């Protein structure tokens, strides 16, 4: 449904006055999106995960035909975003995240009625679509209220209703819960999951910097950092690629034992030993590539060192930790090569259901 190949966008770096005077003819470019290739299937709930400034919004605006890419290709339903923007807008609607983009002095019906006509609907069809959109976002009872008097959650729902008027095949959601309190955000996520994804079966692209939101909602995730696509896959796939070599243990080390003594033995590295807790045990975290057998060898080393071990198990990283780890793995070395699991992660494009996503059936 949505295809991107080598999509790239550079923006000029804004010069200060000194640079304008001393280097008037030079220009420095900053990469917002770098060679992103993605394939998103029809009906998929796809997450773009990355910190602020990762390039998510720029990517979305290129898909919404509001920004022209510098190179690469993007298509929605087989239509090119550069050469066929009108056709793309027939299929894709971005949910503009800014509440101020609503007409605050109008009520919800008047807002939706305006955009229904702008989407090409008139007469009874427009009225029915407005009514249906209001029902979908559960705003029917407050439809006559001036939008300026709405809560942030209600405004967010109205923004979604506005986007749903055109019944787009693809919906772009750019951090839709950023201005919501935790309870409203949770309710809003439930609405996205139950109504938009499960019931209506729309293709949804969600940009978020909130890993838990992505985990709760998305079939697949792409991790974007400094404009680069670091990894793509289901949460399980990302975890198996980037996070299955982390182990956590509860230990009582012999006197004088330090973590540096374990570093490098049987492949163990990134060893960290926490201070004693109230019961006298200390948490040991380490990475052991090579699976369970290699981990068993490390455990034997610990035992040989006289370490008391009450627990030794693979860590189940939170999505935030996983994201951090993926970014870390992709940090370039001084020689320009990548660390660890590298770009092979981006090749993971399977669309199998993700067992980590317990909330959706």
């Amino acid at each position, binding site marked *: 449904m949505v295809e991107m190949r080598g999509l790239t966008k550079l923006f000029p770096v804004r010069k200060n006055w000194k640079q304008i005077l001393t280097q008037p003819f030079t220009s420095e470019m900053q990469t917002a999106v770098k060679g992103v290739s993605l394939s998103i299937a029809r009906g998929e709930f796809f997450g773009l995960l990355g910190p602020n400034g990762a390039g998510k919004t720029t990517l979305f605006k290129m898909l919404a035909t509001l920004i022209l890419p510098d190179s690469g290709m993007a298509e929605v339903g087989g239509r090119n975003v550069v050469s066929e923007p*009108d056709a793309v807008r027939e299929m894709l609607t971005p949910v503009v995240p800014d509440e101020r983009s609503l007409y605050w002095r109008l009520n919800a019906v008047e807002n939706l*009625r305006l*955009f229904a006509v*702008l989407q090409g609907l008139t007469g009874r069809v427009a009225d029915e679509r407005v009514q249906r959109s209001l029902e979908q976002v559960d705003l029917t009872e407050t439809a006559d209220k001036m939008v300026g008097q709405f809560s942030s959650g209600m405004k967010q729902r109205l923004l979604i209703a506005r986007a749903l008027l055109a019944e787009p095949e693809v919906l772009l959601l750019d951090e839709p819960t950023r201005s919501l309190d935790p309870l409203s955000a949770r309710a809003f996520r439930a609405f996205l999951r139950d109504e938009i994804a499960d019931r209506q079966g729309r293709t949804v692209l969600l940009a978020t910097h909130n890993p838990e939101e992505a985990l709760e909602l998305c079939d697949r995730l792409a991790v974007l950092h400094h404009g680069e696509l670091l990894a793509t896959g289901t949460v399980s796939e990302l975890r198996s690629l980037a996070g299955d070599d982390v182990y956590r243990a509860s230990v009582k080390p012999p006197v004088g034992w330090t973590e540096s003594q374990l570093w490098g033995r049987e492949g163990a590295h990134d060893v960290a030993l926490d201070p004693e807790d109230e019961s006298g045990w200390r948490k040991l975290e380490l990475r052991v590539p090579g699976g369970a057998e290699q981990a068993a060898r490390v455990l034997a080393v610990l035992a040989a060192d006289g370490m008391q071990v009450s627990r030794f198990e693979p860590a189940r990283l939170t999505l935030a930790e996983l994201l951090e780890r993926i970014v870390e793995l992709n940090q370039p070395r001084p020689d320009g090569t990548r660390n660890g699991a590298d770009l092979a992660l981006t090749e993971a494009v399977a669309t199998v259901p993700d067992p980590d996503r317990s909330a959706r059936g």
Partner: protein
Amino acid sequence: MGTVKLASARVGALSRAAWLSATSYRVRILVSIVGIVLSIIPIFFVTDALQDVVSDSINTESSQYFAFAVVGMLALNFVGTAVTILPQQISSGITTGTLEALLSTRSRLPVLLAGLAAFPLIWTGLRSLVLLVAAWLMGAEVVWSQLFPSLLVVLLIVLAHLPFGLMGAALILAFRTAGPLAQGVLFLSAGLGGVYYSTTVIPSWLQTLSAFTPLAYGLRALRRMILRGEPISAVGADIGVLCLFAIVLTAASSAGFVVAFRYARRAGTLTQY
């Protein structure tokens, strides 16, 4: 539904939304109407005092200086709206995100621009009508039978000045400022267009510049029709020049806007300040 009908519906929907927004500020609407009526009171006394001084210079357009000045004010109001409305709408649309929402719909850009400009122009028309009626009640000689034909001249005045607004909007898209464009057009129109005095009384070298001012032709035609009751055929030459201004300026400003729009999409600044 036909393309033209759908485009009209879209322009109508944007105008209706702007009307509902505007009328939700009831006090502001009231002050706007009362203000325009009050503004002509000093004009009445000043023009009355100067009637004998200027009567010779204005008599081809009006025998009464008060009516002459009121029609000048009215036309300048239209010019002001035409040159400022699109830059204002684009600028506020970028700030609030409304522009992004509008551009994300299936409406074409020219239709959106027409829709954004329509209500402010209609509102200026309503205010102008109130101004004209108030002036008439105060003694201005208005040939009401010529009101509808003279609307064509008003429309042409707007069409000849909207391109300056489009250029301003293009500058907003590209540079986030329209600079002194609107003020410059208004200053030149007021000074050289014959708003408060006939262009025949200004120095000859300024009269040469006046020949490049669309408002000069529009105002002359408008006054001759609505104040002297002349038929539209009598002002055909002025209407022809006004049409020429409208066509040339629309073509030039549309090209400029397309370039600016593409530049903003390339630079990524189309929907962000």
